[in-house]
């Protein structure tokens, strides 16, 4: 990586904002702006473009989905800007809006995830380089809501685990790490899953995520 990752933060809770800044600075990131509302983030991103914007979904003035709308707007305006949405609740519909056309450089995490600092930082870095980071909760909800249960039933338990981790946006190496197996074993599982579900094979992680998500949503 060339230089420190540059991060902008929009979070209306001062405690959390300060905590995030502390954590990220501690980890060697550069903070380009830490603000409490969408308007301030918009100007901060325009003046001092970051690699990733970490955005709280519920922000003033209405405390509903300001962050989500801001994220969609920033993505349209700043190509290549990574977005990590950050919320205390997971709404599957928000994930669907966010991933409508592309999963590259998108993250959607529960705020709780910052408690596991290295996982959180890893997700942030993934988003920064154009990867995807979906909260396990999003994946669980998608798996729970999918109508493809017939197709999924042909997968083994391990394959289903791998499918979930793929949907979160993890690379083969990360999946191998999480499941404590070799990367070769993961590759075999992935190949099996794609064959069984009849999905288009893709080498890019974020395309793979999209393929899996499309499958679950259809």
């Amino acid at each position: 990586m060339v230089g420190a990752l540059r991060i902008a933060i929009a979070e209306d809770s001062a405690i959390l904002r300060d905590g995030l800044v502390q954590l990220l600075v501690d980890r060697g990131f550069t903070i380009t702006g830490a603000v409490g509302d969408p308007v301030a983030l918009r100007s901060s991103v325009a003046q001092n473009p970051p690699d990733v914007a970490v955005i709280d979904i519920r922000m003033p003035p209405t405390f509903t989905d300001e962050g989500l709308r801001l994220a969609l707007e920033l993505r349209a305006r700043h190509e290549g800007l990574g977005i990590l949405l950050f919320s205390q609740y997971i709404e599957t519909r928000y994930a669907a809006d966010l991933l409508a056309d592309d999963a590259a450089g998108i993250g959607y995490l529960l705020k709780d995830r910052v408690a596991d600092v290295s996982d959180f930082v890893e997700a942030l870095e993934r988003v920064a380089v154009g990867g995807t980071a979906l909260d396990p909760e999003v994946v669980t909800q998608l798996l729970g809501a999918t109508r493809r249960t017939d197709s999924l039933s042909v997968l083994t338990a391990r394959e289903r685990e791998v499918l979930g981790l793929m949907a979160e946006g993890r690379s083969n190496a990360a999946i191998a790490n999480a499941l404590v197996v070799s990367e070769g074993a993961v590759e075999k599982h992935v190949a099996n899953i794609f064959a069984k579900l009849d999905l288009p094979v893709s080498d890019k992680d974020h395309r793979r995520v999209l393929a899996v998500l499309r499958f679950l949503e259809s």
Partner: protein
Amino acid sequence: MTPDSTEDSNVRVRIGGRELSMALTEEQTLRMKALAHTVLHEPFTARPWKELAFFLLGSGLAGVGLAFVAFTMGAGVVLAVTVLGLAILALSLRSARGIGGLQRGLARAMHDPEPFLGRPGFFGWLGSRLRDRVAWRSVAYLALKVPWSILGVFVAFSLWWDAFVLLTLPLFGHGGGGSPVWGLVSNFFPAHDFNGFNGGGFTRDLAGFVLGAIFFFAAPWVMRGFVNVDRQMIRSLLGPDPMAARVRSLEQARTQTVDASAATLRRIERDLHDGTQAQLVALAMRLGMAKEKLEVDPEHVDLERVRELVDAAHRGAKEAIAELRDIARGIHPPALDIGLEGALATLAARSAVPTELSVTMQARPTPAIEAIAYFCVAELLANVAQHAQASRASIFCTQQGSWLRLVVRDDGTGGAQLTTVGSSSSGLAGLADRVHAVDGQLYLVSPPGGPTVVTVDLPLAS
């Protein structure tokens, strides 16, 4: 009868050896003159003619309406074994409602009854129509109105008619009309035989003219009597049903309650989301950072930094506990478990303005009422602390029969208002809504310059 001429006009009447003295004061004289004036002028004002028109139009409409409703209802009842019959019955009731509306329109100046609320689906609609109280009351009105109209035509309208006939008798010499009142009158005066033109020409004409004049001046009042009874029937049968009005006010109270509890839940969610949840996330984050710092090579642990993180996490945990306690107290004050008096004592003690408390209660209200009383006092004391610039406040809580009366008074600057600002109600208006929801009342007296007195009456059991 020999009137004495004193200052007042005295009238002495001798009847059967007893002398009745009627001293007419000036005021009475004036009143009698006014009465005579009214009687003599009444037929030449617009009102009797309007009433006549109202009566004739209303009667015609009621006659046609009743005939139509009775016919369709009859058909509906005959066919009631099939759905078609019930549908005809429903349509009949629908038209009764419409005719009732027209009658109400004729009478003007009356509130509409509750609008029809049909349930979804054909059978829902059918059921709602058949149970439509407004329509059934309209049917009852038509059933009463038609006989009343017939009587009215025989009595009041024929007075007008006879007056017209008798007054024009000298001009045209035509026979007296055959109306019932006419018939009755001619029975009393058989000798003159008004009907048969056999009496002396001039005498007959003069007597008829005088009688016609009496009828002419009496008719407006008789007609008014009929119209007033009709109005009363319209009011009680076609106006809003008192029961329905009560139901409507209860429905409003229920809506307010539902809205208020939704707002309360939303507030609690917001408090939890912005406060405690954020606190706990920050706390977990700090502990996560501290954990990472400890996981490196023991030689290189930055103990100072770890201590800082743990310290901040510890502070955060304590703050989160305090916030949770406040939120929990907002949901249900634990102090209420020991009774209203104890809970109010806690409130008075916690109040920023020195507050005196006096409680005299014999019975214990239901928990819901106690909670409302508690939140009222809490909100009012908060208002006193925030807005009133008061140096003292007092709370009186007394039982009056089956009512609980709360009086919260402060010696502040006054000028408090019970207004609703936009869609979000002010604190006091919100309280008033809450109090109304249980049929209670909130009164506010707050002149500029103070003092402010808020009185809340709550039923002991709701």
